């Protein structure tokens, strides 16, 4: 058992601050992604818009979109020099991403006082078929009174609304993304699991290029593919349900009574790997003595997703 901060990897045995790191990997999938930036007169309106925009965006299964705040932006970082928030969104296809972003922007940003909406990835050089409409669709709300401006090669729309003009970039690029990076925190009890999960999310929260779209960044409804009910494509992951030990197969041993999962979507393999490393390390360091027992990861045997995040590699 290690007291040190760095993991010690003896063959298949890796521990961080006494927490067992399983010799397994997270399996992740190709997705389509974009970054958008919401700015506003002040941080409060920006937060309201971002919160509305990113709600009900935990999983593509039923939300169609996985979307969350990436990070807060200083005024100097935003296109219009106002306080802003960057969000990352992921979907299974470019057309779904497009549809969901426009729909949500229309309901959550166009509506929100003082906000403006911008692409968060550079448009220049992006081929037309990799661009999704923002203002290109939303402008019609202006009913003919919208005004277009091309500034430094980028088109924006000024759409008349009751508080003045809603400024909205014409298009946003979409790019390749990776969804489904993950790790599981196995703990003595839910208190310890909750604390470890919050430590992990605290470490990941401000990292660029990656989001953790579940509520508070965490989920407890890990699933397996399929179900005894034919209409369900996924159902509870028996092997990690502490209450099913003794009656179904379990991955949980004595004293492993609560599991929480962090799911990560990122723009690059590296951003997800980085976030997994930081999140796992933070959880282990803060909770190794306080009930966090093991860290593992979810995969489908490597057959479904082409991105594999091996915990021992990431943490070595």
């Amino acid at each position, binding site marked *: 058992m290690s007291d040190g901060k760095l993991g010690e990897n003896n063959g298949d045995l890796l521990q961080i601050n006494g927490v067992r790191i399983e010799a397994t990997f997270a399996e992740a999938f190709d997705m389509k992604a974009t970054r958008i930036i919401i700015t506003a007169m002040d941080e409060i309106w920006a937060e309201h818009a971002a919160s509305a925009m990113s709600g009900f965006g935990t999983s593509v299964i039923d939300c169609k979109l996985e979307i969350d705040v990436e990070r807060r932006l200083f005024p100097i970082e935003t296109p219009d020099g106002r306080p802003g928030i960057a969000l990352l969104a992921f979907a299974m296809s470019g057309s779904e991403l497009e549809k969901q972003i426009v729909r949500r922007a229309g309901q959550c940003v166009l509506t929100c006082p003082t906000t403006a909406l911008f692409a968060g990835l550079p448009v220049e050089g992006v081929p037309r078929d990799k661009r999704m409409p923002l203002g290109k669709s939303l402008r019609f709300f202006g009913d003919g009174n919208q005004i277009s401006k091309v500034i430094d090669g980028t088109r924006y729309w000024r759409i008349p609304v009751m508080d003045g003009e809603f400024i909205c970039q014409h298009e946003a690029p979409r790019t390749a993304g990776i969804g489904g990076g993950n790790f599981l925190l196995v703990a003595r*009890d*839910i208190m310890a699991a909750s604390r470890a999960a919050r430590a992990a999310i605290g470490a990941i929260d401000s990292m660029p290029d990656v989001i953790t779209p579940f509520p508070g960044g965490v989920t407890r409804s890990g699933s397996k593919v399929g179900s005894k009910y034919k209409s369900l494509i996924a159902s509870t992951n028996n092997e990690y349900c*502490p*209450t099913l*030990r*003794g*009656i179904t197969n379990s991955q949980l041993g004595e*004293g492993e*009574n609560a599991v929480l999962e962090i799911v990560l979507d990122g723009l690059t393999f590296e951003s997800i790997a980085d976030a997994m490393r930081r999140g796992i390390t933070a959880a282990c360091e803060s909770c190794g003595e306080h009930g966090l027992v093991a860290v593992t990861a979810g995969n489908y045997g490597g057959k479904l997703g082409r991105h594999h995040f091996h915990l021992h590699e990431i943490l070595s």
Partner: protein
Amino acid sequence: MTRWHFRRRASESGKPLTQSIDASAIRREWLCEKSESEINALEITVDGLAVSLGDVFELSIASSEDTQIVIEGELDEVHGLGTLHDQGDFRIVGNAGHGIGSGMTGGTLSVDGDAGDYVGGPYGAHKVGMAGGVIKITGHVGSYAGHRMRRGVILVHGNAGQMLAASAVAGTICVGGHVGQYVAVGMKRGTIVLANSSGLVNQADEMGGTSSNRFSPPMRFDPAFLNLYRDPMFDEITLSLRQLPVFRTRADRTVGGLGEVIFPAGAELAIDV
């Protein structure tokens, strides 16, 4: 609504009070439709003989905010009280005999005292026991409480005898005191909450030994759903489960059962956990 109050007469026609009485005919649904004289004329079985209810119990009827049936007096050998009870309060003041709440479907049946065997069991030749409602017993219960139980709640403040929840298919049984041998035999589904784990510890050989595979290995468990029960007696009985680490085992595994027995660690066990 109506309150029917039955007080057992001190003696029936000069005979001693050691008779066995089948009182299963006293049912809310039936009482509702009858006059006082009709009720008094109801034939019940006393030591195998048909006797008029009015000869055994003194009835008074009053209007009430709730539907209430109250039975008072020497009831140790009065069996089948609360049979098929369906709504309102059925209150037994004193120790009741066997088979109370048989086939009950709703309402509350409370015993201010002990109860005999087969609390909440099946009615007559039926295959399933109690199907709804709450039975609350301030004292102890005999064997086979919750036999073949299908739904509802049985709260026992005191001890329970052998064969608790035998062949139960659902429902919740909560025992504050000790429990006898053969807990959960043939149990398919349902919940047993034991505030006192010593009864199970006495069956330790069954809990992982080779003599019986009835129980799955006990695991730590967060009995969050217990918070949904708002009955003060429930709270009182389950106090230890809020103070000690809680475990759960599934039963009866020998019949593939998914019933659950929830109990707190003993103090010495708690230190380890």
